[in-house]
């Protein structure tokens, strides 16, 4: 037996427990994920329904999302677009957008019915640092400034305190990474990809209906 082969077997002999545990723990986690996923999805849906009321006003309801297949940053994704409905009429959309802040970040980007105007955003899931990055879900002035921005054009981040015009939004000093890369970056990445796909899906649905 060659020295190289001996070394390999020796490593395998030492690591057998780690390998078996990795398989066993991996299988256990897959089982837990499978068992809890439907319930977590439902929790997220319920949470989004509450946030749509917050953005679009009392009396807003939602329904099953329209799922659009898009490519964001060279990665193919399926994005859930929840309709905001009031008095039986669709008045806007809540787009569940996945991006990256300090860690994975999920935003609800709200737009009008034609996806022309941003109505606001809400944080659905985040792992941002409490007291620092999590200001993106607590700082009212920062959150409110997104309402009325042009959904067809990119948002332009400017430092906090600077005058803003058009599609400019100020970012939070001390949470620049989360507010600029996390929130502004996610909106700028996801909206241009989702907008045409969602408009096409609506057109198709109108033709069918």
């Amino acid at each position, binding site marked *: 037996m060659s020295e190289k082969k001996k070394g390999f077997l020796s490593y395998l002999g*030492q*690591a057998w*427990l*780690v390998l078996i*545990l*990795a398989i066993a*723990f991996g299988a*256990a*986690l897959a089982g*837990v*994920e499978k068992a*809890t996923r439907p*319930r*977590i999805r439902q*929790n997220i849906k*319920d*949470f989004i329904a509450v946030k749509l009321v917050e953005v679009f006003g009392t009396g807003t309801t939602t329904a099953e999302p329209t799922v659009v297949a898009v490519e964001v940053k060279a990665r193919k994704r399926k994005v859930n677009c929840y309709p905001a409905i009031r008095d039986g009429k669709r008045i806007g959309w809540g787009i569940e957008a996945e991006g990256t802040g300090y*860690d994975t970040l999920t935003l609800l980007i709200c737009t009008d019915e034609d996806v022309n105007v941003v109505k606001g955003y809400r944080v659905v*899931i*985040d*792992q*941002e*640092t*409490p*007291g620092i990055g*999590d200001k993106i879900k607590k700082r009212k002035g920062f959150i409110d400034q997104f309402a009325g921005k042009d959904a067809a054009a990119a948002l332009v981040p400017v430092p906090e305190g600077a005058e803003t015009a058009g599609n400019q939004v100020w970012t939070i000093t001390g949470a620049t990474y989360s507010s600029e890369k996390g929130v502004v970056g996610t909106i700028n990445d996801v909206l241009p990809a989702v907008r045409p796909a969602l408009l096409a899906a609506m057109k198709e649905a109108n033709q069918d209906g």
Partner: protein
Amino acid sequence: MAEMTLPGAATRFRYGILDDNPIYRQLLGMCPTLAVTASLAGAFTMAAATTFVLIMASTVVCLLRHQLKGHLRILVFTMAIATFVTIVDRFLAAYVFSMSRQLGPYIPLIIVNCIIICRCEVCASHQPIHVAISDAAGQGVGFLLGLTSIAAVRELLATGGFFLNEANPAAGVRVIPGWPNWTVMAGPAGAFITLGVLMGVVNLISKRKKS
């Protein structure tokens, strides 16, 4: 032979709560201690999650203790801890979604909580299973007492009561009517002040008890 000289199950359990309290005596788990004690509910959930991981990881490590190789043991500890932390994280997101959102990254951060890896190294990898479980349970109860004592003081001084909810005024218990909310107690400064004062009180009591 070595096992006979080590503390037994009852002693391990008692040590975890009092003499070796993870927060007031060992000063371990300071990250969640300072971060999640702004509310009693958050502190209780964190302690329950940590206790579950402590007991499960100690059990697995104890069952494997004769197979553990010295240089691979930390890897095995970490794998076991990470698995149970992920399970807790998923269950909280599924069944206590609002608390999962409130605790945010602090649940995944249990993986790096020194209390757990410390108990795996000190007790679970050396002693029989009943001792390992007693030790983990004792440390869990000690952690629970530490977190809830700090959270109780902070929440009371920050809001004038317990479990109060601005959105639902009927919820919770107001202990001090008309209390001018000390918002500093809900922030990081309040956590450091409360921890320091309570640690001083515990030291004082221990000193008097000894003398």
